């Protein structure tokens, strides 16, 4: 009798100790791997540049300490010296991360991406002057595909292991015994697997032409990764776009995206873009995204920062009104509407990459959510966009196949057949970015118009104007 009581008490004591231990371990794991800390920026501009849109949980997310040391362990997978800067990130002095990358604590500090990644431009007056940074402008200099491929290459390399990564972190930061264990046994293997999974999901990128600096394939990732469309061979390569000054586009009912595949509301554009960045419908931070949407409504158009010959520009305004305003000015009969492909004559690949099946899929994608999409459409042509801030939106045409405004006013046969894009020194002569020469070749990406998706044909408007008229018109376009 006495023996049983003693054993019983022992078991109870043991169970209590075990439960406490399990509870302690569980708490530690939760707080160091799962506990989410809010990330809020007072200023809407900071929210745009550094705020989270919810990408820190899936896809490309990388724990901050791993992200930090990857360029130091694998510099050979970057396009050149400079660490992440070599990929064309816009990075403000004194900031720990470039614009477009977020640092959100979910247990550990995690790095995700946000809108500003593809929508922030750098511009330099000359080779030695430091860049000016323009949030909401097209990230013409940023190599999105290069960033993905850098992370994929690191993850695929057998040196992506705990010894090397913790070894690189150790001289810089003492993360403590528990975190080192968590990194070794959970975070590093998990990150590796996540990146390799993402690499597999994006393997279709490797059998079609590269996106190049300043360009992405905006909708094939959505089609193949979560819309359930079987991988096809379409090439959707298109320039990153500006996201400023949304108000007139909203108020005038303009179409969005190069092929006008959405005609509103702005919320569908914003939310579908976030989904395209690997946020899942369940984790869309609707309030934060609404904040960004509101910010974009009135985000100002940056003025041309170099000299403008005002007299010449006034003469150019007359030319613009006569030849361009119909499609490109507020009040124009066709502004913000889709111009049929037979008329516009530009490269059809981007248009073809967006299919009727894609429309059906996206319009029914999130039916059970209150914000579900209904406005996706298939058009056979390209959108005539408002030319606000056009000085900062080169190269030109949806596929960025024409480097400068001066080149746009030449017939396609006279436009450059090979040039380099992504170099951020400005060409004040021809209006666009410097696209030839030793430096452009070193820092830029080579665009060859003979590669599928890169044709610079079409948009012949203005190519038959007189030389004086062309000069005046280009001068006027600087003022938009």
């Amino acid at each position: 009798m006495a023996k049983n009581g003693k054993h019983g008490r022992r078991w109870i004591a043991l169970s209590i100790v075990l439960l406490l231990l399990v509870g302690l371990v569980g708490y530690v794991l939760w707080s160091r791997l799962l506990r989410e800390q809010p990330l809020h920026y007072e200023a809407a501009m900071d929210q745009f540049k550094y705020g989270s849109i919810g990408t820190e949980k899936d896809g490309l997310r990388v724990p901050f300490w791993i992200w930090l040391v990857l360029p130091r362990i694998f510099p050979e997978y970057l396009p050149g010296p400079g660490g992440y800067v070599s990929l064309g990130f816009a990075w403000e002095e004194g900031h720990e991360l470039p614009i477009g990358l977020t640092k959100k604590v979910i247990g550990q500090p995690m790095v995700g991406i946000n809108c500003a990644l593809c929508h922030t431009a750098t511009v330099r007056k000359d080779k030695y002057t430091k860049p000016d940074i323009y949030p909401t402008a097209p990230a013409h200099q940023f190599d999105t595909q290069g960033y993905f491929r850098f992370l994929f290459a690191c993850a695929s390399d057998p040196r992506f292991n705990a010894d090397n990564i913790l070894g690189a972190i150790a001289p810089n930061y003492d993360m403590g015994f528990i975190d080192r264990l968590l990194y070794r046994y959970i975070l590093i293997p998990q990150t590796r697997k996540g990146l390799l999974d993402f690499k597999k999901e994006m393997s279709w990128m490797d059998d079609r032409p590269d996106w190049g600096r300043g360009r992405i394939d905006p909708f094939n990732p959505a089609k193949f990764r979560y819309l359930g469309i079987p991988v096809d061979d379409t090439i959707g390569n298109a320039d990153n776009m500006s996201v400023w000054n949304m108000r007139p586009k909203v108020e005038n009912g303009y179409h969005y995206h190069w092929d006008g595949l959405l005609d509103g509301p702005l919320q569908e554009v914003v939310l579908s873009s976030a989904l395209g960045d690997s946020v899942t419908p369940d984790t869309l931070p609707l309030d934060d995204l609404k904040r960004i949407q509101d910010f974009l409504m009135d985000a100002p158009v940056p003025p041309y920062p170099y000299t403008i010959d005002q007299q010449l520009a006034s003469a150019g305004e007359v030319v613009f009104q006569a030849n361009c305003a119909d499609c490109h000015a507020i009040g124009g009969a066709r502004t913000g509407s889709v111009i049929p492909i037979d008329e516009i004559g530009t490269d059809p690949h981007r248009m073809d990459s967006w299919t009727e099946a894609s429309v059906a899929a996206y319009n029914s994608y999130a039916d059970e959510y209150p914000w579900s999409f209904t406005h996706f459409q298939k058009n056979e042509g390209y959108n005539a966009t408002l030319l606000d801030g056009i000085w900062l939106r080169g190269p030109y045409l949806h596929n960025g196949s024409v480097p400068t405004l001066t080149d746009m006013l030449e017939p396609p046969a006279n436009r450059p057949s090979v040039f380099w894009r992504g170099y951020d020194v400005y060409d004040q002569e021809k209006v666009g970015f410097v696209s030839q020469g030793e430096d452009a070749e070193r820092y830029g990406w080579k665009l060859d118009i003979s590669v599928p998706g890169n044709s610079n044909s079409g948009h012949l408007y203005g190519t038959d104007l007189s030389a004086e008229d062309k000069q005046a018109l280009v001068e006027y376009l600087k003022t938009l």
Partner: protein
Amino acid sequence: MNDEIARDSGSAGSQHKGWRRALIAIAIVLVLFAAYLVRRFTRNEPVVYDNIVEHYKYGSLGSEGFSPPYWVFKALPVMFPEYLPGKGYQSLGFVYEEGHDLPIGFSRRRLNGLDGVGLNCAFCHTGTVRDTPTSKPRIYVGMPAHQFDIEGYFKFLFACALDQRFTPDQMIPVMESLGADFDPIDRALYRYVVINQVRLGLLQARDRLSALILNPEVPPWGLGRVDTFNPYKALQLNYPMHEIPVNELIGPADFPQIWNQAPREGLYLHWDGNNNSVDERNLGAALGTGATPTSLDYASLDRIDKWLREFPPPKYPYPIDQALADKGEVIYHAQCSSCHDFDGKYIGTVIPLEKIGTDPYRLHNYTYDLTVNQATLYAGMPWRFTHWRKSDGYACQALDGIWARAPYLHNGSVPTLRALLELPENRPAVFYRGYDVYDQENVGFVSNVPEADGRKYFRMDRTVPGNDNGGHLYGTDLSPEEKDALIEYMKTL
């Protein structure tokens, strides 16, 4: 079990107990030995100095992980004298004091079971001055190490590491002949781990720095100069240095003085005015000694930081014609003080390159990409760098102790104050730097001696990229009498 033992009484039982006791004794000895080993290998104890000046010269910043251990450091000049420019480390311009067996700038710390050697601020910021070619050198702390061949030191270490004789078999006897008293654990450690690790570490550093200091297209830095920021690209950030265009790999700059830091708070520091925080300047330089954010001895650095804030510049050690200096003061206030006085309007601000007109290489090799990457250094700590910025010219420096800061301009391309007041075409096209005999006539160091006392001095040729002596034309149009007066006044700063 208990029953069996209870049955086995007598001799068999006591034999069993004997074994148990022996086992326990062995276990205790093993545990004690393990504890001893743990203590031996986890001790982290610098040699400390109460006197702040001694601490500055020989104290440890926690950079011992980057330098060869003490006995290796001692053995290298004995085993590989041919890789030094002359006899011993002295030939590199290291400064030795009576009673110290390591030169100024070197610290000692017991780390990882070894006697380690580290670098500190004094390594680059201690200068010598001699009154005549036969005088003993006077040592000034905080002064630019104008006589020091830092590139020569790295090249020496790297040449040793490449040499096939850098092996435990060859090195251990030399170390012991120099006085190393190794116990069996030390000897095993050096034989099986340390010497090979040190060699590997040096070869890795050689690889990272080769584009800078073993590159025939990159001119030598020369005595008293260093390419301040390119090494960070190579060592801390591991840029693929060989992909950097050659022009960006050129741009050495004079070691500066680091005294009197308090009035410099808020001024844009470094030759190109890239940081206006004295703390960040000091923390950045600490990384330059080989300390890392986790190895840095913050308390030690803090001691030096506090002292440097108030440590005054040295007074000019030769006679000054006070009447002439007073005349010069008027000229100074008219022509120079707005840029160079602590209350001057432009002090610590950057004069754009086109305006100042001095050599552009140093400015251009501090690149924007480096600037923003530096904001990741000390990540996770409250003192993470936030002040680095890319400027477009060179900063107006205060002239405290200017007599001791020759040669002049950021790249040390003008030997004396008198030469600086000449138009560039009249400044010496070629001169020699690193000689520490003082030139009282022209104010600066004697610069026409190519070789003396077995030491070769560095030939500065202004046509070599990075060495241009143009720009800073201020004062070049003063009359000879005015220049005399101005120079006399500047001796008093």
